[in-house]
């Protein structure tokens, strides 16, 4: 697995650049990850990111767009506004969790 240096810290990532170690993430790192993909973080982004992390921790799986709406309280339209075009992947990247596994 590659190790990349972000903000002077060594971070474990997969071949695409998604974090592989849940505990290497913190909010300062998230800000840099967001800037890397040109996302300006707002309170609504943080709501989504924090739910994604909590849910991943509890379920062992990244929430899908549908779960973000039905359980996380961030509706689908909002997800596409917050993380344009590829909401699930972009949110996962910033939240330091794997890409969603399921089809829907």
């Amino acid at each position, binding site marked *: 697995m590659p*190790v990349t240096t972000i903000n002077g810290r060594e971070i474990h990532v997969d071949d695409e*650049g998604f974090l592989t170690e849940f505990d290497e993430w913190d909010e300062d790192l998230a800000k840099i990850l967001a800037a890397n*993909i040109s996302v300006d973080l707002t309170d609504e982004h943080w709501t989504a990111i924090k739910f994604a992390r909590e849910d991943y921790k509890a379920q062992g799986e990244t929430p899908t*767009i*549908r*779960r973000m*709406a039905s359980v996380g309280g961030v509706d689908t339209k909002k997800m596409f506004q917050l993380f344009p*075009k590829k909401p699930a*992947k972009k949110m996962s990247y910033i939240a330091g969790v794997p890409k969603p596994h399921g089809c829907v």
Partner: protein
Amino acid sequence: MTTETQAPLVPNFDDDDTDRKIAFICSKGNLDMAYPALVLANAALGEGIETHLFFTFWGFDMITKSRMHDLKFSPVGNTAMHMPVGDIRIPQALAPLPGMQPMATKMIKDQIAALGVPEVPEFLDQIVASGGHLWACRMSADMNKLSEEDLYDGVEAIINASDFIEMTDGAQLLFI
């Protein structure tokens, strides 16, 4: 193996690659045949791809308000229909018996729900919220004597075959 990279490794989300366009022709109204297009369209939207669904012939039931909540699955003619346990195939001679269709429908609905996948109307809601475009076929509307008021609200318009062909210029097409 550990490799060290100098510049931060950032996923390539291909934001500038906006050319891809995909269209699904939904021609079936059986519950099991409603899902392939919905699942794939939803996935395409999640990848930032312009996505269209065109409902025609039996696929019209997927967007007809009075029918879309109640699509059925039939084991008749489906030799791949197995019982959930024991890998037992349902004999075709039994498939048309009374009660088989509701049982099979319930079984498939339960299996889909267990995966957290929504029912057809709710799935269409999600596709529309994700920016997907839904279109109804003019000939099917005329055959069924249905107008836009009879159709799911997310359907943008009833369009004819030429409109659809024009609209999908350059798109990848899937007929289901």
